[in-house]
């Protein structure tokens, strides 16, 4: 989110405190003072992780501190994994394959790249899945493994980050 606050001592800390109060996790704080800036207003960008449903409360708390919120960009799904599927993707109803992930409510297919060679040849696609949490991602991949098996598709998973 992008915040606007008074450029006086203690203001930034005061603005950050409500984030931890609502159980949020600050990932990055960026504040740049324009060299020619004369005003006493400080612009701050904060990247943070919030539990579901806490955003409204945070907005109220920040406003109480006299902080003006310029913009909130919400990225709901934090975990991203890319897999590759090989096989007769169209004949086995690709939209159904995608839908099995999208219909979970906790994960969705956010990107799909596909190559389609000659008719009757196996096609390949790269699918990016986003999920709410690591566990949700694992559940989504479990669904995809099951669907791939049913449809005789070859699923290539990423090698998880070590450690």
């Amino acid at each position: 989110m992008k915040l606007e606050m008074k450029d006086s001592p203690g203001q930034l800390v005061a603005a950050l405190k409500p984030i931890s109060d609502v159980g949020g996790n600050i990932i990055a704080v960026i504040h740049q003072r324009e060299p020619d800036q004369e005003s006493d207003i400080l612009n701050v960008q904060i990247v943070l992780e919030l539990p579901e449903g806490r955003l409204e409360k945070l907005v109220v708390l920040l406003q109480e501190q006299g902080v003006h919120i310029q913009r909130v960009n919400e990225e709901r799904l934090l975990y991203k994994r890319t897999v590759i599927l090989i096989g007769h993707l169209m004949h086995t109803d690709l939209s159904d394959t995608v839908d099995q992930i999208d219909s979970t409510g906790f994960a969705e297919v956010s990107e799909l790249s596909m190559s389609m060679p000659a008719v009757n040849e196996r096609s390949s696609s790269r699918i990016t899945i986003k999920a709410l949490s690591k566990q949700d991602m694992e559940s989504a991949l479990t669904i995809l493994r099951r669907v791939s098996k049913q449809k005789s598709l070859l699923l290539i998973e990423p090698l998880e980050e070590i450690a």
Partner: protein
Amino acid sequence: MKVALIGLGSVGRGVAEMIAKKDLGLKITGIADSATGLIDDDGIDVAKVLATKKKTGKCGNPKITAADVIKKADYDALIEVTPTNALSGEPATGYMKTALARKKHVVTSNKGPVALHYKELRALAEKNGVAFRYEATVAGAIPIMHTLEHGLGGNEILALYGVLNGTCNFILTRMADEGLTYEQALMEAREMGYAEADPTYDVQGIDAAIKLVILANTIWGNGVKLGDVDRTGIDLLTADALRLAEEEGCTIRLIAEANPRKKLIRVSPRIIGKNHPLVTEGTLNALTLETDMAKEITLIGRGAGSIETASAIIGDLLFIQDRYVQRA
């Protein structure tokens, strides 16, 4: 130290050559190929035997068999390097048991017997107070067993990841670099002598799975078998799949993976960042161990080849010589 060498294929010849060439304190007193054998308690002229083998295809006397050499020759350690049989492990397992029962150390490159009968062979060696070593069975020249046993002694091994089949790695490297189809890359691997006429054993991940079973049993003693490995090969991969991975700064490699906490033991093609340490070129092998104290350790090296495999076997022999037998 006196050794008997059973098997004179590419690996056996490599071992014989290096023993003849280097002053390692090793003397060959018995030698056998699939049809003939030779016993000389005073030491065999290895160079002469290799020349005969090259000329006639046989190494010795047709009346002396491998079994005779193992039972009758005077040796401290048996080098068992006959072709592997992944289904029965024979006749190699029988050879090794006979030698162990005679209280002879055994060094082998033979995967079948170790994957199938690890517990039994190990128990027999312990009972007879001799060593049973098999460094050459996994990842060729990479000293993975010595690393696990000594260098990483006292570490808990939490997980392992490996590129354990050079043929698959070569095929995948060529598909990624040149945009070849699987069939084209396989043909090239055959021309280079990296793939067998029947590539099933390599490309369906069976070879990698057998090595994974050997590693898992060595590290965790969990008794896993080949049938327990969740296995997918590379034979259904498309050039498009490699390209799609490439677009994301990744590639595809056949990864063998074991993680007992996750109850996971599998061999499968995986998407992996191109700068990941396990991404090696051509026929190279690589292994990453995740441990409690040392954290991650990656070893990279040649996974096959006559002299490369001989390196692993000689490493085992010299270890035995140091620990059990006086240096000659």
